[in-house]
Every structure is written in C-alpha cells, then in structure tokens.
C-alpha cells in the first residue's frame, strides 16, 4: 500500500510538471491551430539557463535556495524572448501557408534548438545541483522531498494565477476571444499579433519553470531532455481536449499518474514480459487510444473543427 501511495505522489508531481508544459501547448494550439513542436525544447532551455546561472553563482556563498530562486527570472526571461522570436520569425510568416509548412518549420525549430544546445552546452549530461534540503519528509509510509513539495505548491500557485489571468484580465479576455474567432476579435479591437505573442510568452514562462522543476527533481540536465516530456505533455493536452485549459491539467495529472503507477507495476502485471522501459511508450499508446476512441479529448475540444 505504501508503494502505491508513493507512486501516487510521484505521479501527481510528474503530472504537475507535465501540466505546465501542456498548458503552453494547448494555449498556442487554441489560438493559432499549430502544434509548437519546439515547446519541449523551451523546457530544456529553461533548465539549461538555470543550470548556467547556478553554476555561475555556485561559489558566491549565497544560500542554495536563493540561487535557485535567482535563476528563475533569468530562465523565464530567456525562454520568453526565445519563444517570442520563434513565433515572429518562423511561424508568423506561415500563418496562411498550407498546413504542412508550419509543421515542418516547427520540427526544424525543435531540431535547431536541440543542436544549438548541444553546441553551447556540449552533449554530455550535467548534474543539476541539489540546492534544496535533500532529506525527504516522512508522511507515515510514503515520503516526499522538499523539491517535490515545492513543485506541487508552485504548480498550484501558477494555475491559480493563470485562471485569474484568463478569466479576469483584459489580456485573458482577448486571448479567449481570439481563440474563439480571430476575425471577429480583431473587429472588436483585439490585436491578434499581440495576443498571439503574449500566448507564446506565457507558454514559454510556464515551460521554463517546468524545466527548472524537472532539473531539480531528476538532478540532471542535457540537450535532449525536453523531447520526451514535451511529447508527453502534448499527449496530455490532447487527452484533456486540445484548446481546453482545465483539460490540459486533468490530462497531465492523469498521464503522470498512469506513468508512475504503470512503471511501478508493469513488470508484475505482465509477468515480466514487459519491463519498466516500456513506460515511455505509455504516452504514445494513450495518445493513440484517445484519438481513436474520443478524439475530442476527455473534456472536449475548444477549437472549431475545420470541416
């Protein structure tokens, strides 16, 4: 039972990180109907920048948590600028091009970012220093580390902020309007370019934070670290219903739980035939199942179908 509860905790933590990235995917898709293939790489850049800042400040004598905190705005700023530029340079010119074009560009962007990261930071994985207390908190059976706790708290806080942003601010209204009907929104005075850029920037900030969380939780960073989480987060977004913000969170939590529990029990369930290395393809299997059986996702799509 303890193991099960432990996996639940792990699953929720994993799901929280996926949720932050999934939100970025779903917001962008809701507004411009584009899967930003490079989004997972933004997570990676956030982690790498944070690692660079931390390495830089390592000998400064500041307390660990302060260094970590300081790296946050730097990573967010870099990622926001990055995503903003990507949208402006690679996606905006292709808004009216045939569907295949932005898809290819997005894939190229993803590849470019990975390769540049490989060049800048060299291909070998680097340890991400443990800046928070390592001693896990005992919950009477299962344990939770300070890092994991912070991840849950931060995610909760960010989600609350996002809800406020989307529902109670002018920008949020503009985003929702543009997602529903860009032409009419434009007629009402909303500047679509601005809204789209804002969406990319917000998504990047979320991904950057998720990147730092990921690095702190798993203790290592590398140029290819964004690919799988990105893909899984996208699966979560589709699972919940692409374009649907609460859906992205629900999908992400579900996926995180399935992955954690599955990885733990897969070996037992299949009598040793399938080991835990197959956990990675859970996300894909889940994606295929969802898209085959309920393409609009669990909570339903918010994007008008192009019939």
């Amino acid at each position, binding site marked *: 039972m303890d193991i099960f509860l432990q996996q639940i905790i792990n699953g929720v933590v994993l799901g929280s990180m996926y949720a932050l990235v999934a939100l970025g995917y779903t917001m962008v*898709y809701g507004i411009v*109907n*584009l*899967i930003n293939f490079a989004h997972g790489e933004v997570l990676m850049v956030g982690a790498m920048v944070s690692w660079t800042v931390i390495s830089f400040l390592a000998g400064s004598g500041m307390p660990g948590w302060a260094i970590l905190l300081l790296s946050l705005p730097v990573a967010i700023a870099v990622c926001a600028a990055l995503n903003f530029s990507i949208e402006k340079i*690679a996606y905006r*010119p*292709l808004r*009216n*091009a*045939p*569907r*295949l*074009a*932005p*898809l*290819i*560009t997005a*894939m*190229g*962007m993803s*590849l*470019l970012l*990975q*390769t*540049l990261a*490989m*060049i800048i930071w*060299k291909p070998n994985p680097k340890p991400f220093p443990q800046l928070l207390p390592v001693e896990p908190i005992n919950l009477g059976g299962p344990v939770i580390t300070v890092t994991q706790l912070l991840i849950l708290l931060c995610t909760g806080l960010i989600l609350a902020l996002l809800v406020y942003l989307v529902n109670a601010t002018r920008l949020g209204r503009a985003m929702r309007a543009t997602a529903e009907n860009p032409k009419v929104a434009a007629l009402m005075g909303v500047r679509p370019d601005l809204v789209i850029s804002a969406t990319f920037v917000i998504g990047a900030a979320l991904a950057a934070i998720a990147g730092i969380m990921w690095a702190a939780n798993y203790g290592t960073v590398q140029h290819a670290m964004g690919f799988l989480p990105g*893909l899984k987060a*996208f*699966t979560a977004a*589709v699972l919940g219903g692409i374009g649907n913000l609460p859906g992205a969170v629900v999908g992400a939590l579900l996926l995180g739980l399935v992955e954690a529990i599955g990885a733990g029990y897969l070996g037992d369930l299949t009598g*040793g*035939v*399938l*080991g835990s*290395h*197959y956990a*990675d*393809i859970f*996300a*894909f*299997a889940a*994606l*295929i199942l969802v*898209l*085959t059986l309920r*393409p609009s996702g669990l909570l339903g799509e918010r994007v008008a179908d*192009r*019939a």
Partner: protein
Amino acid sequence: MMQPMRHRWLAFITAGIGLLLLPLFMQELGAGWVRIVALAMLYVLLALGLNIVVGYAGLLDLGFVAFYAVGAYMYALLASPHLAETFAAIAQHFPQGLHTPIWMVIPLGAALAAVFGVLLGIPVLKLRGDYLAIVTLGFGEIIRVFLNNLEHPVNITNGPRGLDRIDPMAVWGVSLGKPLLLGDYRISSVTLYYWLFLALVVLSVVICHRLEHSRVGRAWMAIREDEIAAKAMGIHTRDMKLLAFALGASFGGVAGAMFAAFQGFVSPESFTLMESIMLVAMVVLGGIGHLPGVILGAVMLAALPEVLRYVAGDIQNLTGGRIDAAILRQLLIALAMIGIMLLRPSGLWPSPERRAATPGAARA
C-alpha cells in the same frame, strides 16, 4: 511534356549510362565514395515510399523509419544465425542455418511492411494533419522501443546489441558480399550492391510515376486537396489512405531488407526519430509530390553528412571541438527545414503547377 519525346529518351539513356558507370569511376577515388552513393540510393528508395504517403496522399508520417526497421529486422532474422542459435527447434529444422534468397526477401519484406502500414493506418484514418503527425511519430518510437527491448523473456531482437552476421544478398547466384572478378578487372562488393539498389530505384520510380498518373494517383491527390469533396465524389477515402500507407510502407520494408544485407548488421540505433524526420525533410525540401524533387532531396540530404566530413574537420578545430560532422549535419538540416519553408515552401524542385501556385510564404 514540353520537349519532344526523343529528347526525353535521350536524356534518360544518358543519365542511365552515367549512373551505371558512376561507381566504377568512384572506385578509383576510394571505396568510401561508392558506399555513399549506394546508401544514397537506399534513401532515395525510402523517400519515394514516403512520398506516396506524404506527397501524393497528403498524410504526414513522422514514423516512416518503423517500416525500414521492420524490413531490416525481418531479413536479419531470416538470414542470420540468431534464430537458430536462440531456439533449438529452429536449429533442428534448419541445420544449415536460416538463409533466405532475394526473390523471397523482396516480396516478404514488402508484404510484412505493408501489413504494418495498414496497422498504422487504421487508427489514424480520421485524424487531422497535426494529430496524424504525432501519432505516426509515436508509432515509430513504439517500434524502436520494442526492438530495443524484445530480448526477454524470449530473445527475438537481441535488444540494443542488435543482430549481426547477416547474409549478404545474392543475385542469380552471384553473392554481392564479395568482389566480382571479370578477368583482371575487380568490381568491389559495394559497387555490386549499388547496382542492385539502382535497379530497385529505377523500378520504384516507374511504379510511382505510373501510380501518379492513374485513377489511384488522382484519388490520392483529391484526398490531399480536399478530403470531404473527395468523399462527396464517391472516393472511398478510407481504403485509398490505407493503400497509400501500405504501398509506401512496402518500399520502406524492401529498403530495410537491402540495408540489413548491405551492412551485415542491424541495431535499433539505425532507426531513430531523427531518421524519420530526415526522410520527411528529404521529401518536403526536395519538392513534395514531385518525383525529380524527391530524388534530389534524398540525394542531397543523404550525401550531406559525407561531404560535411571533409569540411567539418576544419570547423571542428575552429570551434574547439564543439562542432563535428554529425552536429553540423543536424544543424544544416534544421536550418534547411526552417529556411526552405519560409523562402520556398513548395521545395527546391517542385512540380511545375505547384511552384506558381504556392502563395508567397515569407510575407512579413
């Protein structure tokens, strides 16, 4: 079309002779060069197959390498000692070991890959472009993970170690694994493989061209242009899409079997997502749906890594060892994908109708 038929035939024959003699010249420059063009031919084969799915039917397949892997592993299992060494029952039945002749391999590889193509096609039939891309990508990854892990409880694929000691191909009794001696003249084994691949490429080009200019090809293009209108005209879009997947996959399967024989060794590392992406890049950058463009794209991207090897030596020194040939190749492919989509979205050598048709993509 525009030129008189006679000119076209002349051009084809000249090109044909040139292609046939090419390796004999390159042999003098070094065996490495012949290997490059032989592998380029395999990539052309793959690109032609992917072109059926992406170019004709408009279905973005990001996991095409899965069919390549299926063909390669199929041949590896049917033509190497692995199965006989792992399963006593097989060793009993085949005391000489498992060897499969080429006239069985080609149809088997094509058929097996086609089956996988249909298996992939069925769940994705109703998916829109972006979703289709992700699911096919997932399919490719699923295959790779299985290849990497199917070593317990029964060792089928030998996991990350891969399968080796694969038989070379033999055509009409002549083994392609050894050099051929014509009197005093020595033709290297790689050249022999090149000719086999070239023959397959020519056959594939003919097949693709004939399909393109037929009722089937038109139906695919109708689906690509507007699926609903295609349905309204009575086209059975489900079957046509499955046909595209199956045919495209079959090309991949045959290419895979050839690859396994050529290398003598297969491992999951040869069948990564990067390969699938590169194949899509070949088709799209070359000129989607246009056979000459696709061939151009394949040859360029296949030859690129090797050409870079000569250039990269200097760059490596310049950047203190950070950029090597593999990284440079990835960088250039990424930049090419972005650049060409922004500047010339219909590809480097698009079909004549498309070039004029594509709206100016780089409108600021």
